[in-house]
């Protein structure tokens, strides 16, 4: 309990305010890293996932890759890439590592979303004369959106947590405080930094929770709910 009090004291301290990395800047860096990472990962994983989901081809490979990638130790991957690319390009190395870690969840969300669409619906869309592209864009993508958003949500949470390690390669972010605190034995600072990361993750998770509701396609929500909202027209045609 004492430690928590100290951590909160540190969060509001002069010391943090005058730190070489001000809190606002650390937040900004953290969000920037996370956002760019998820954006790049999505640009790769969403088209790939849609292609796999739509054609049904390459599914086994995708499942294998996502499974293996999820087991990758993030810290090891970052250090490895920084070593391989050299310390002067540590930012690039860290980015690549973050992106690689974010891809599996997004890939899985994208192809699972498309796969979850009833094949009869897709068949009907094709039978009335939609092109494959129109089927993907007008049917599979909107109906699969909730699962894609779910994948993005886990990717964001994972990235926000992993970007903390950017501090190790001198890239700043909220991890800076934690990593700087370790050799100094400053447990208040370490815990304070961790609390900030957790708070950021919770806020982002909340936002994605809202987003998940917004993208839920209309027409799929429970019937009773809609019937109640729309009593005037319910059962207007007698028998059919």
């Amino acid at each position, binding site marked *: 309990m004492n430690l928590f009090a100290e951590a909160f004291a540190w969060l509001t301290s002069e010391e943090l305010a005058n730190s070489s990395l001000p809190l606002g800047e650390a937040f900004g860096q953290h969000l920037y890293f996370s956002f760019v990472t998820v954006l790049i990962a999505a640009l790769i994983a969403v088209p790939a996932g849609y292609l796999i989901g739509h054609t049904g081809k390459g599914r086994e490979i995708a499942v294998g890759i996502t499974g293996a990638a999820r087991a990758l130790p993030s810290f090891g991957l970052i250090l490895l890439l920084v070593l391989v690319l050299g310390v002067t390009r540590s930012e690039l190395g860290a980015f690549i590592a973050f992106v690689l870690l974010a891809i599996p969840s997004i890939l899985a969300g994208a192809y699972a979303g498309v796969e979850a669409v*009833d094949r*009869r*619906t897709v*068949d*009907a*869309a*094709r*039978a*009335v*004369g*939609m*092109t494959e592209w*129109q089927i993907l864009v*007008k*049917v599979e993508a*909107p*109906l699969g959106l909730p699962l894609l958003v779910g994948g993005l949500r886990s990717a964001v949470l994972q990235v926000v947590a992993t970007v903390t390690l950017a501090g190790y390669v001198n890239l700043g972010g909220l991890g800076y405080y934690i990593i700087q605190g370790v050799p100094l034995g400053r447990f208040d600072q370490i815990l304070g930094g961790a609390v900030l990361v957790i708070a950021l993750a919770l806020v982002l998770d909340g936002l994605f929770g809202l987003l998940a509701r917004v993208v839920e*396609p*209309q*027409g*799929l929500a429970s*019937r009773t709910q*809609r*019937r109640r909202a*729309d009593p*005037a*027209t319910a059962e*207007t*045609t007698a*028998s*059919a």
Partner: protein
Amino acid sequence: MIEFRSVSKQFPDGTKAVQGFDLTVPSHSTTVFVGSSGCGKTTLLRMVNRMVEPSAGQILIDGEDVAKTDAVQLRRRIGYVMQNSGLLPHRSVLDNITTVLRLNKTPKAEARERGLALMDTVGLDRALAKRYPSQLSGGQQQRVGVARGLAVEPNILLMDEPFGAVDPIVRTELQQELLRLQRDLGKTVVFVTHDIDEAFLLGDQIVILKKGGVIAQQGSPEEILANPADDFVADFVGANRGKRALSLKQVDGRTIVIDADGKAAGVLHEGAA
């Protein structure tokens, strides 16, 4: 006119669904493919709009080989109605009906007007236009499916057991509406069912199929009842039993029609119909 010329279909897993099928489907009338489940009806129907490609043979629409047409364009000018309605669950009734019109770049207001008019045509209350398919009864969904099939004013309407999943009362109603519609519209309808009663009710021509898409007999309902080609057909149409094995009995100077159970089915009026 749709011509099947020695059409065969073998699926990649080796199933021979259709073998050497020859048939001419006349325009502006209803042709019913009837046969038990798995005999190849759906496969035959889906080869017309190239949802299935034949392994051998040709299908011609008004003399044009469908294999030489663009599949997407072909499908957009053929109406297709299927059992589970196949509506897009995330689109409203009106948007479902006007899907193909919109794909063909019909202006929104015009598509909307046509969509609403089609709702009248198939007997759907316009108040349902903004509903989603999941908010409709099975019968209403099938009506939307028919309206969507009619939206592009196709010459050909393919219907694959469209009333198979609705309850018998609604089915009877939908069958009657289809008869009424067809009297007004005169489309070239190819209708698939496993129900011989439905076939006799709706079909101008009946094609009775055996496994592998083999034609057991084709002709008008009257021709088939009067002269079943073989025991298979006689058995399938029930010519020897139930409500179709009728006999006559003289009662008080009038001729009464009796069914196979010995129950009075009606009175015979000589020369009627």
